């Protein structure tokens, strides 16, 4: 148990009955994501609070059940259509972005630092296009986006998380400016507890660009995205805002 745990546990009872003011509620929620001990205690207190709710049933109006069923089934159907459309658009944009990057680079000879800077710009542009497509498609949750960076390195890029409906979350990584050594890089999402989820392998072109995306069942706990080299060293990291 850390100092943070002691402070959080002092507030767990208030948290469990919804009586904690919003700023502290966010701090406690964030802590609970990464702390199994406090999460267990919060769950036990929440069970106590749930007793109060469960013990006061009342008969709802007759038509409410059908309205609930129609609302959920309708949203689920719309979400399926939207997710399918998003997947098609994402695949199309990935293709266009890749062609654009390769085209821009073809036949050009650059100094290494120029190539890295250009690659970073391309990665930013490609990522902006992804974000704009995802926001245009519209989703139940937010699009989280963060720059990929490494201390003392020119390499750039961007990581994007999309909180979709129905367990269809989506992670995208676009790298730019990483040296192409022949060995692939790997991108992982990292939870606050340090658990890693593989996003995919990245094989940058001569100028260092590559993008990779993958659907996940649930990404709400992801805090960072890291890119590691063949030796397992972290070469780039993105930390999502508010994650």
């Amino acid at each position, binding site marked *: 148990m850390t100092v943070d745990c002691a402070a959080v546990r002092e507030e767990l009872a*208030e948290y469990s009955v919804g009586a904690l003011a919003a700023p502290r509620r966010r701090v406690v929620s964030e802590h609970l994501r990464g702390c199994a001990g406090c999460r267990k205690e919060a769950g036990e*207190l929440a069970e106590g609070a749930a007793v109060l709710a469960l013990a006061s049933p*009342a008969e709802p109006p007759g038509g409410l059940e059908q309205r609930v069923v129609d609302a959920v089934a309708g949203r689920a159907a719309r979400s399926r259509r939207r997710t399918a459309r998003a997947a098609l658009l994402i695949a199309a944009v990935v293709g266009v972005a890749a062609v654009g990057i390769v085209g821009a680079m073809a036949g050009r000879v650059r100094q290494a630092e120029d190539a890295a800077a250009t690659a970073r710009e391309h990665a930013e542009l490609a990522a902006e296009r992804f974000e704009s497509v995802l926001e245009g498609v519209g989703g139940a949750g937010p699009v989280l986006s963060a720059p990929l960076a490494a201390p003392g390195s020119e390499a750039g890029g961007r990581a994007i998380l999309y909180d979709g409906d129905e367990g269809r979350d989506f992670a995208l990584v676009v790298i730019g400016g990483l040296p192409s050594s022949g060995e692939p890089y790997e991108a992982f999402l990292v939870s606050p507890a340090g658990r890693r989820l593989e996003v995919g392998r990245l094989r940058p072109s001569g100028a260092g660009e590559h993008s990779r995306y993958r659907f996940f069942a649930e990404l709400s706990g992801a805090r960072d995205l890291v890119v590691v080299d063949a030796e397992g060293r972290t070469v780039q990291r993105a930390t999502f805002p508010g994650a």
Partner: protein
Amino acid sequence: MTDPPGPLTPEAEQELMRRMISGDEDAVRELYGRFGRPVFGLGLRMLGSSGAAEELTQDVFLAAWRKGGRYDAARGRLSTWLMTIAHNLAVDRLRRESGRTPTAVDGLDELVEAGGIDDEEAVLAREDLRRALGDISAAERRLLHLAYLRGWTAREIAEADRIPVGTVKTRLRSALIKLRRIHGKAEG
């Protein structure tokens, strides 16, 4: 609405939520059959009108569908998860719409006297709650009433009752632990 069936195993609860988030209408009906009445009842007590309770109920089941991918049966019971969503939504609505104006809800003492449904499970639940509330002090009951049903923060309660915030927190925690002891009995 038919009477709620018996409790589910954690595996069955996880499967029910998996079907629910895929939009399976039978799964939505089953979830509603199990929790529609407590959710509606909580809305009625906290928000004070049938219309507001209906809106809350619809919002709760939509939220359950939207957040369903995050439900993990290994971490807690479905009833706790769903009623926490219901309570949070009701508190948000109370704070948004009425500020600190008291709504026309009953206190905890009246809560256990609530009628309208006479199925065995509800009666047992009320009996359990009556016993649990008998174990806690009047001060703890008042805290639960203000915090859980009215959405007051510990600081607001402390100022209103002129007691230290630390005392509010300690009493709240003690009351929740006592209530939790009956949770297993309430759900079987």
